[in-house]
């Protein structure tokens, strides 16, 4: 077989596999063995997607979900980043907060939904709260580990060159822990995304991608569900590639620190 055929073989196989999966699905959907409402054809899903985008509902829901994710993430970073860094730098702070964090970490974020509903009502506040809870821990743990992992050699060198506490902090520790911070951000985003969908299903009032899926169940509209799932997957994928990929390239990759950062 020619070298070109060899090199394209994985791509050809990927394509075949996707087409095969799609074909099997279509086959099942059209076979009539399942109700069309439960297993819509790909054409129907595409139509639901198209309609949803055109009449503005899907984008509005997506924006609502994104808003909650970003707000929750922002809140989580505001809490976890400084705390994690301080924990890494000062032993007493670590000693106080580590047991608390370890106790709270094994609790799934969705377990707090009923409580948050009672405290904050349905809607944005609860969703943002759950997202924040989910995102705080990966960010905290990574910031903490990142600071601790800063090569003590760098600190010694900077000290020898006369750097004071503040300089040390901002010019050595923070950039030095960047790979971990980035990994923490990525994991936090992933958790946030999972949390927001769950929270929207259980606690959203009217808007959000998670809410659409839940609502569509009541009306047996699997085509809408699958369309929303596709949108969720797309946004997650886009964020991963565009936002995090870019961030990584601009910082840790450029500095050759990539190996340390994979979380």
């Amino acid at each position: 077989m020619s070298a070109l055929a060899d090199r394209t073989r994985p791509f050809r196989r990927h394509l075949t596999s996707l087409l095969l999966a799609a074909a099997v699905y279509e086959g099942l959907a059209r076979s009539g063995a399942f109700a069309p409402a439960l297993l819509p054809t790909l054409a129907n899903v595409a139509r639901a997607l198209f309609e949803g985008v055109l009449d503005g509902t899907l984008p509005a829901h997506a924006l609502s979900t994104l808003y909650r994710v970003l707000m929750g993430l922002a809140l989580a970073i505001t809490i976890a980043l400084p705390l994690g860094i301080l924990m890494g730098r000062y032993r007493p702070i670590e000693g106080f907060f580590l047991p608390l964090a370890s106790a709270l970490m094994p609790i799934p974020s969705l377990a707090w939904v009923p409580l948050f509903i009672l405290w904050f009502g349905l809607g944005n506040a609860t969703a943002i709260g759950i997202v924040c809870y989910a995102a705080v821990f990966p960010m905290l743990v990574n910031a903490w580990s990142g600071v601790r992992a800063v090569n003590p050699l760098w600190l010694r060198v900077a000290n020898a060159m006369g750097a004071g506490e503040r300089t040390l902090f901002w010019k050595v520790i923070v950039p030095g822990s960047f790979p971990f911070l980035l990994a923490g951000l990525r994991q936090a985003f992933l958790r946030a995304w999972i949390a927001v969908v769950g929270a929207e299903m259980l606690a959203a009032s009217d808007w959000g991608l998670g809410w659409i899926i839940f609502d569509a169940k009541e009306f047996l509209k699997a085509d809408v569900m699958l369309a929303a799932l596709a949108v969720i997957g797309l946004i997650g994928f886009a964020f991963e590639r565009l936002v995090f990929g870019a961030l990584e390239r601009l910082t840790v990759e450029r500095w050759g620190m990539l190996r340390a950062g994979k979380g």
Partner: protein
Amino acid sequence: MQSVGSAMASAPTSQRSSTRWHTLAATALPFVVVGALWEIVAHLEIFPARLFPSLETIASVFVRLTVSGLLPHHAADTILRLVSGFALAAIVGMAVGIAMGRWRLAEDLALPIVSMGAPIPGIAYAPLFLLWFGLGNVSSILLVGFVSAFPIIFNTWTGVKAVKEVWVRAALAMGADERRLFHKVILPGALPHTLTGLRLGLAQAWRILIGVEMLAAVPWGLGWMIFGAREFLNTDVMLAGVVVIGAIGLALEKLVFKRLEDFTVVRWGMMS
């Protein structure tokens, strides 16, 4: 804390037990502080008592539910679902991961499908599963199995591919055939990554199970217990439930996997 450890090793017995108390006290301190703050807020009734119960109320609810057998029943059902879903994920996940690691064809075919499923949060599939399989146990077990299979597949696949070339060569040189190579070299060699995958899968399974129980309206289960409690504003029940959920999550992590890892990959020096 590090210096405490080494000090413990070298100090005479009386000093050692006092430093042990020291560490215990230090670990308990944050909880005591937080607990005290909570109690103060609760007793001052800054928030309505119904919404912010005191620690004694939570404790007494916990005792009541345990003694009446309700809490154990909820917990048992949840754990049963977890075990079934996870077992499903482990079997299917390891099989697919091994196939992907071993045969290029399997990897090329499965990778796009598996990668597509991964960025979508597992819980997003929940209503779909409920639609297809109805409310109750089957949907929750299947969903848990489906979602926790992904980390297992990826990590097992990585593990198989990470088996060192030099082990394979040495084994082949000593006359191993395909089958024996697989059992005696590939499987043990892939174990560190596989265990990581199983551990991540279990954590994932626990997280999603609680959410699914809330949606699937199963009659018994910890998720349902705390979700249902909101109807009567029983925050004390909710908080007691949250504590139990967290404790089980911790136990799963510490007891199950730590033991397994200590006996295998840590003993063999493949993971510290």
